[in-house]
């Protein structure tokens, strides 16, 4: 029979899709931002469902708590209003949907084809506990880790320089 896990999965999946669709359909960017937050939270839930609790936590904290907040600040800073209905690109109008479907379709088909034999993700969090992750992070992936920290520093400086008012 349908297990509880599956039900929760579908609920969360539906929420995520609903959020994504809402992001497209809303006209005010702030509404789109809120939809995106919904998507991220659902995804965090899905991570938890899969047993990747650290990732779920990082998702909420970093994405939901920092990135989206930043988005919201910028929207309010720039006083973004309702989106204009300009339409200069015929190509985008007519070609957009088919192309998006094509892209998604290719990826889906490709991944479906090659992952049929994979076992379902385990719900146990043993493998992906914080301890395990950090072991990996500081041994095999220490070089990317250090680089990424450097990257964040550069990003911060860049953002400061870019957003200065002109003197």
């Amino acid at each position: 029979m349908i297990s509880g896990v599956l039900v929760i999965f579908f609920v969360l999946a539906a929420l995520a899709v609903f959020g994504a669709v809402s992001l497209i359909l809303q006209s005010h960017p702030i509404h789109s931002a809120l939809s995106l937050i919904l998507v991220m939270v659902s995804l965090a839930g899905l991570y938890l469902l899969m047993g990747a609790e650290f990732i779920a936590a990082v998702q909420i904290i970093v994405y939901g708590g920092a990135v989206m907040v930043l988005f919201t600040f910028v929207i309010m800073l720039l006083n973004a209003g309702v989106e204009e209905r300009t339409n200069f690109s015929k190509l985008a109008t007519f070609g957009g949907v088919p192309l998006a479907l094509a892209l998604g379709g290719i990826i889906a088909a490709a991944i479906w084809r090659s992952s049929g034999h994979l076992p379902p993700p385990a719900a146990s969090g043993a493998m992906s506990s914080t301890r395990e992750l950090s072991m990996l992070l500081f041994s095999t992936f220490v070089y990317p880790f250090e680089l990424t920290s450097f990257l964040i520093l550069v990003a911060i400086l860049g953002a400061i320089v870019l957003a200065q008012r002109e003197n």
Partner: protein
Amino acid sequence: MPILENLWIIPLLPLLGSAINGLFGAKWSKAIVNSVALGSTGVSFLCAVEAVREFLSGGSQPFRKEFFDWIVAGSFRAGFDLQLDQLTVVMLLVVTGVGFLIHIYSTGYMAHEEGYYRFFSYLNLFMFFMLILVLAANYVLLFVGWEGVGLCSYLLIGLYFLKKSAADAGKKAFIVNRIGDFGFMLGMFLLFRSFGSLDFQTVFAKAATWQPEAMGQFGTMTVACLLLFVGATGKSAQLPLYVWLPDAMEGPTPVSALIHAATMVTAGVYMVARSHVLFTHAPTAMYVVAIVGCATAFFAATIGLVQSDIKKVLAYSTVSQLGYMFLACGVGAFGAGVFHLMTHAFFKALLFLSAGSVIHAMGGEQDMWNMGGLSKKIKVTFVCMLFGTIAIAGFPPFAAFFSKDSILFAAYNSENGGKVLYGVGLLAAVLTSFYMFRLIRLTFYGEKRYDEHKVHVHESPGNMTWPLMILAFLSLTGGWFAAPALWGGKDYFSEFLSPVFGSGESAGAESASLEHILSGVAVAAAFAGLIVALRMYGKTVKRGTSEGVHKLLYNKYYVDELYAAAIVRPLVWLSTNVLWKVVDAGMIDGAVNGVADGAAAVGDTVRHTQSGNTRSYAVWVVVGAIVVLGIVFWPILHPALFGGVR
């Protein structure tokens, strides 16, 4: 210095003379140009004499030396190889000797003409190529000389290139020659394919082992010989490629004498004589040669009967006499053909140079109807021309009597209608005698038909008359080598050439008397022509209207017009409408322009992607992603496209 070892000196000297005159002559005085041109030719003649002396003293062994490799491709080798045997001796002495005399003559004739240094440069260049042709020991080198003399002929005919008729005549000569050369080349290819080489030694040795082909059979040898003969018809102005020779009279008279009488046009005869081994193995080809020669001899003689330009008469006479030479080769009497070649060189050069002297005396007039009564005014020229005329008519003891006689005798004795060939040849002899004496009568006798106040008739200077006299002497004595055969002695000329051609017809006692009879008939024929000419062209002559047969002959049977309509016009039409408009402008230009237009069209289409519209760019990003992912995932995806789970 042994000349024989260094045979290349003989052609090289005129080449140097040509180069020096060509490069520097424009700035030099006539005297320096003269000394370069005459010096190179004269020394070349002396070297030729020395080479002959060495040859004879060395026991007359055929001499051949390879100087350097020119073409080496696989097993094929064509080198700069020169040879000397008895046939070459004859040709060599004729070319250098007569050539030198004509060079001397030209210093007088061309003294007041434009392009003096150019003339001598080309003339020397011609000598170079002709000597290469004569000395060559393989067909390829011969062909180099062949083509080269054709080139010089073009250059010299069109010496006065600002005159349209001269330029046209030069082009005509070159193009008609080219048609013949095409046949020659095909013949050479066939020979190479059959024998694997184009050296005379190799080819003739191999060909001698072949079975002679039957009459009427068109085997390899026959076809090759026929193709070579096509080349000879072009170069030696036989039917149907003779049309360039009368037009070639546009060139200065020494050119007509040297190239179109004594040397270049005889190259075809020389080539056929040299290839006698091949021809004797192909009776069909020889028969064709004989018929064409005979027909040309008669045909050209008929045209010469009514011409009014003194040089044109001599031109058609040359065509006719060349026909005799080919007739001789065609019936197997190669020695007789070469003999006639030599005597013809003497008397035809003499006739042309004398005509040039007359023209010079008349201040450029060439129409015989505007001359008359010149015999007293220009005595030396008159006597020399008379010598030449008597020679060509075939009166003994002048040279052509012996040569023409042996040809007609050989024709009479040949198989397959030799009597007919003899008859036509005899008829042509009658006509020859007639039109030559007609020329003498119109030019030198009768009352003068020119205005004495306008034309100041004067004898030519020494450098023109001395060569005339030397040639007149040779026209008289040149045949005496063969004279003893008349009274049962040896024909020294044929004997000299016998190592090359094999011993000819053995003259038994019975055929000796037949020969006497035929000689008598020939002389009678010459007399007949003389009498008729004297009768018709007496003291007062008037130029009549041209109608009927006369008109046909005067317009040369309209052959040029026929060629123009049947061959030239269609070709020009083809060139203009097909090759130019369709192939060149349409396809080739179209392809090139098409590429450019295509590139422009592609650019015109692709530029729409650069719209400046950001959202379009976003779409293009997605398109690119699809393409890349498609390529990457293709191995995974494509079983899916063909349905079903594998």
